[in-house]
Each structure stands twice: as structure tokens, then as C-alpha cells.
């Protein structure tokens, strides 16, 4: 008896040790590259050009950030990013909640047809070109609203909210109806406040999506004043790529300045997400579960 316990103990201890070592390696593989970007963005041009550091820079300087903030278009892009994320999230969540609330009532006429239409949208789409032609004919090209209107609706989010609304006890609604409240009133005054956790999850996912989205700009926007940060960063990257290919062995000064600006822009672009991350983390796991595990 003692022998089996000892054996099991040893087996477990070896297993745990190897497990922890491997997971430490995984963590290092993720953290070191990110750390390197932050350290590099804070390095002077000279240090960047010489290279040769991974964890710590030989020469720190804020020149990259100064260069970024001197560029007014980046400030504007930041504002566009914030505006489109903020407005986009609020309108998206409200729109999806409204439809989800309506569809959560089993008795409504035409429900089967509505749900069937929704499911079709999950599996089929026209794809890039037909959607582009639609956006063009709606006059949304080069308009701020192209960030908001086509992103209003997602049937996936509607389903999540619909399931959430269904779990609210019927008696709440019934007593409100007896008091003479209409559907809109019940939705706005009772269901929305009760569903804050579900709506927060969807808001956060949608917010990250809006913040990170750059394809919408790439496809529908040519007006530089409407570029969000991601698109601005994309332009800087493409520009530095062509430059570094043009002067292979050529002017190292230009190359390192654009590299420094690029790194500083990356950090600035990511900062809001990293700041929000602790809040995000609380919600996204439950969000994944809501969407994926159906009992």
C-alpha cells in the first residue's frame, strides 16, 4: 500500500515539474517578443540601427514617441478609432438587443421566417465584391457611417441575447403588463437593466473587433481624414517595407526612424486594449461559454 502511494507521488511530482517547466517556456515565448517591442519603441535610433538587444536597450529615448505625436494625422486617427468604437458598440448592442428581445417571444407572428432568415445570414454571404457594390450604391463610400451601419447587426449576438432574455422570469413581464406597460417600456425599463452582464460581454467583443478592424477602411475609405489608427499603422508598415527594400544597404537613418515610428505607433495602437484587458478578461470567458455551450 505504501509503495503505490509513493510511486503515485513520484509520478505526479515528475509530471508537475515537467508541466510547469513547459508552461514557463510557453509564457516566455509569448512575453519576450511583446516586451521586445515595448523596449525597442523606447530605444534611440542609434540603438535600433545597431540592434543586438532583446530584453534591455542600451540607450533609451522618447524620440520615437515624439515623432509620432508630432504627426497630427495620428492624433486624428486616434479620435476616429475612439469615435467608431464608441458609437459602433452602443448602436450594435442596442440594435441586437432590440431584435433579440422581439424574437425571444415565442408567440410572435412570423417568428419561424425571421429565424430562418437569420440562420441563412450566418452561413451565406455575398462576399467581398457584391457587398462593396451594395455599400457603393448606398452612398456609404468615404462616409464615417460605413463603420457603424453595416456593423449594426450580427445574428450570432442576437441569438446570445435572445437566450439570455428567455431566462428572465415571465412573471416580471406579466406584472408590468398588468400595470399597463407596453413592450417597449418593458424592454427598456426591465429587460435592459437586467441583461447588463450579457450586453457587456457582447459590447466588449464588439469593441475589440471595432478597434482592431481595418478591412472596412481598406475597402470603403479613401479619405485620409477618416482613417482609424489601424489603417494609419498599416500605411506606416507598408511604407517602411518598401523603403527597406529600396535601400538594401542604403540609408540606414531613414530605415531606423521609420522603424522607430512604426514601433511607437504599434504600442500606442495596442495600449487601449492592454488597459482594458483586465476588465475584458472577466467577461470574455463567460462570453465564449454563452456562445458555444448550449444545454
Amino acid at each position, binding site marked *: 500500500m505504501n509503495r*503505490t502511494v509513493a510511486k*503515485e507521488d513520484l*509520478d505526479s511530482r515528475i*509530471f508537475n515539474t515537467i*508541466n510547469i517547466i513547459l*508552461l514557463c517556456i*510557453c509564457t516566455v*515565448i*509569448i512575453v519576450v517578443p*511583446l516586451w521586445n517591442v515595448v523596449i525597442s519603441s523606447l530605444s534611440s535610433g542609434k540603438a535600433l540601427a*545597431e*540592434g543586438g*538587444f532583446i530584453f534591455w536597450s542600451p540607450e533609451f529615448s522618447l524620440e520615437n514617441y515624439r515623432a509620432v505625436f508630432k504627426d497630427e494625422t495620428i492624433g486624428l486617427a486616434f479620435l476616429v478609432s475612439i469615435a467608431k468604437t464608441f458609437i459602433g458598440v452602443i448602436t450594435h448592442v442596442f*440594435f441586437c438587443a*432590440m*431584435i433579440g*428581445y*422581439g424574437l425571444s*417571444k415565442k*408567440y*410572435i*407572428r412570423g417568428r419561424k421566417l425571421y429565424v430562418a*432568415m*437569420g440562420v*441563412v445570414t450566418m452561413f*451565406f*454571404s*455575398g*462576399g*467581398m*465584391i*457584391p*457587398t*462593396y457594390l*451594395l455599400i457603393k450604391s448606398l452612398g456609404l463610400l468615404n462616409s464615417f457611417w460605413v463603420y457603424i451601419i*453595416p456593423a*449594426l*447587426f450580427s445574428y450570432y449576438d*442576437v441569438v446570445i441575447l435572445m437566450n439570455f432574455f428567455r431566462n428572465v422570469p415571465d412573471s416580471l413581464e406579466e406584472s408590468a403588463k398588468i400595470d399597463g406597460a407596453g413592450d*417597449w417600456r418593458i424592454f427598456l425599463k426591465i429587460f435592459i437593466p437586467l441583461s447588463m452582464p450579457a450586453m457587456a460581454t457582447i459590447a466588449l467583443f464588439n469593441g475589440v473587433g471595432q*478597434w*482592431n478592424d*481595418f*478591412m472596412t477602411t481598406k475597402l470603403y475609405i479613401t479619405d485620409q481624414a477618416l482613417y482609424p489608427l*489601424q489603417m494609419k499603422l*498599416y500605411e506606416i*508598415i507598408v511604407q*517602411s517595407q518598401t523603403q527597406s*527594400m529600396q535601400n538594401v544597404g542604403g540609408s540606414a537613418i531613414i530605415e531606423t526612424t521609420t*522603424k522607430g515610428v*512604426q*514601433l511607437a505607433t504599434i504600442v500606442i*495602437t*495596442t495600449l487601449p*486594449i492592454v488597459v482594458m*484587458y483586465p476588465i475584458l478578461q472577466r467577461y*470574455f470567458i463567460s462570453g*465564449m*461559454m454563452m456562445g*458555444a455551450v448550449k444545454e
Partner: protein
Amino acid sequence: MSSKKPMGQRVKEFVIDYKRQWEIQSMIIPGIIFMIIFCFIPIYGLTIAFKSYTVIDTLDSAPWVGLDNFRIILSDKYFWDAVVNTLGISFLKLAIGFIIPIILSVMIYELSAGRFKKLVQTISYLPHFLSWIVLGGMLIAWFSSSGMINEILLNLAIISKPVNILLDANKYWWIATLSDIWKEAGWGTILYLAIMSKIDPTYYEAAKIDGASRMRQIWNITLPNMKPIISLNLILTVSGLLGSNLDQTLVLMNSQNREKAEVINSYVYRMGMTQGDFSYATAVGLGVSIVSVILLISANKVSSKLNDNQSVL
């Protein structure tokens, strides 16, 4: 049997009900209008794949050309290059990227709850929240001749002089695959961990009494319990074989590695949006979605055969 009267009555009932429900219907109608405009009109717009559309045409005035666009696709060398690249990258992602989250989630699950477990999870989810543009910029910095990767390779004496790996077309598939795994592997564990947390702990206790080693417990208890979700994930991955990441390609592709980096999605983008060949690009996109649906259905069939005729989807 008169079918007319019940029919008329039904319509009447419907209208009465509808009027009674007008308030709640008014919440749904905007969504229906949205779906018709933004989802169903583009699906109708797919017809331009069978037309010859030029900028001066409208969708309806463009002349029908039947399957001409599809015939051109079959003899288009660049299209087939894109197909090869898409499949190559997707298979690499499938072969490596599918297994890693499973292993990683088992490893995290086996940790005793505590600070370290939380830390590992927090860190491994983080890259998922970076956009491909940000990650692309980072990759370019890491791979540049004065960047981190060259520094590591130089220190390990694997290379003797710095090279820009992103400009090497032959390495592109690996860069695309590994960067995708780096970004998404940790995120992929969330769902597996959620399923594992529902496994009845008495199984493990019983196995311990029987003297089963930790590896044996993983093999005989943890993995079998995850089979349904693993097969569901596999089906979705297989159906997505032809749809590679457009954001990733657009940011990492350059004139040096284009030959190996062009995937179907970026080809559609290039033909349609930059060269204005709308009909042709739509035909490519339509062909790809049809093949994807076929892949989805067959993967589901195969897996339901393997899982005792229980269809996952």
C-alpha cells in the same frame, strides 16, 4: 372541402394578430430590413459572377455570360498559385495549430489552481486581442535584420549574418502558420478548458486508486471527454481550409514573397478591388464558398460516422 375560406380566414387572423403585436413587431422589423439589405441583396449580387460587369453597368444591365468567368478561372495560373498557397498554409495550420491548443489546455488543466495558473492563462490569451496589423508590424520588427529573431539566431550560431526572413518567399508559409499559432493557441484553450471543468472528478479519483499514472489519466479520461468538442472544431477548421486570413496576408505580403504569400482571399481582393474585375473576383469567391460548403457537409458526415452516427452540427 373549400380551401379558400380557411385561407382567407388565416390571413385575416394573421393581420389581426400582427396588429395586436405591432409594438413588439416594431422591434424586429428593423432587423429584418437590415438583413434584406445587407445580407440578401449581396447574395443576389452574386449573379454578377455569371455576368460581364463593368463600371458603367448596373447590376441588372450587365450582360449575362454564363459560365465564362468560371472557365477563365480554370486556366488562370495565378488563381491556382493562390489555391496552392492557401491549401499549404491551411494544412500547416491544421497539422500544428489544431493540436497545440489541445495539448496546452490539458497542461493548464493539470496545474493546481493558483496564481501560476491564472498567470499562464492571462498571458496566453493576450495575443488574441492584438490586431493582425499590430502583429504584422511586430513581426516585421522582429524579423528585420537588426531585430530580435536575427539576434537570437546569431547568438545560437544558427546563422552567421543577419537576413530579413520576411523577404524570403520560401519561408513565408512557416511565418504565416507560426505567427497564427502564436496569436491564437492560448485563446483556443478557453473552450477546451471549459469542457474539461465539467468532467466528473470522481473519474480521476477512481483512476488514482487503480494506480493510473497522470499521463494515463489524461489519455483515458480527459481526452475521451473532449472528443465531441474536438470533432466539432475539426469540422469547422476543415470547412475553413480555403478561407485563409486576409488581414494577415495583406500586412505580411510584399513584392518579394508574393509568389508564396498570395492566397485566394487576397487574390479576390486584388482582382476585384485593385484591378476592378468585379465579375471575375466574384466568380472566384463564389466558387470557393461552394467548395467550402461541400467540405463542411462532408466533414460533418465523416465525423458523424466516426462518432456513432451522432452528427455534431
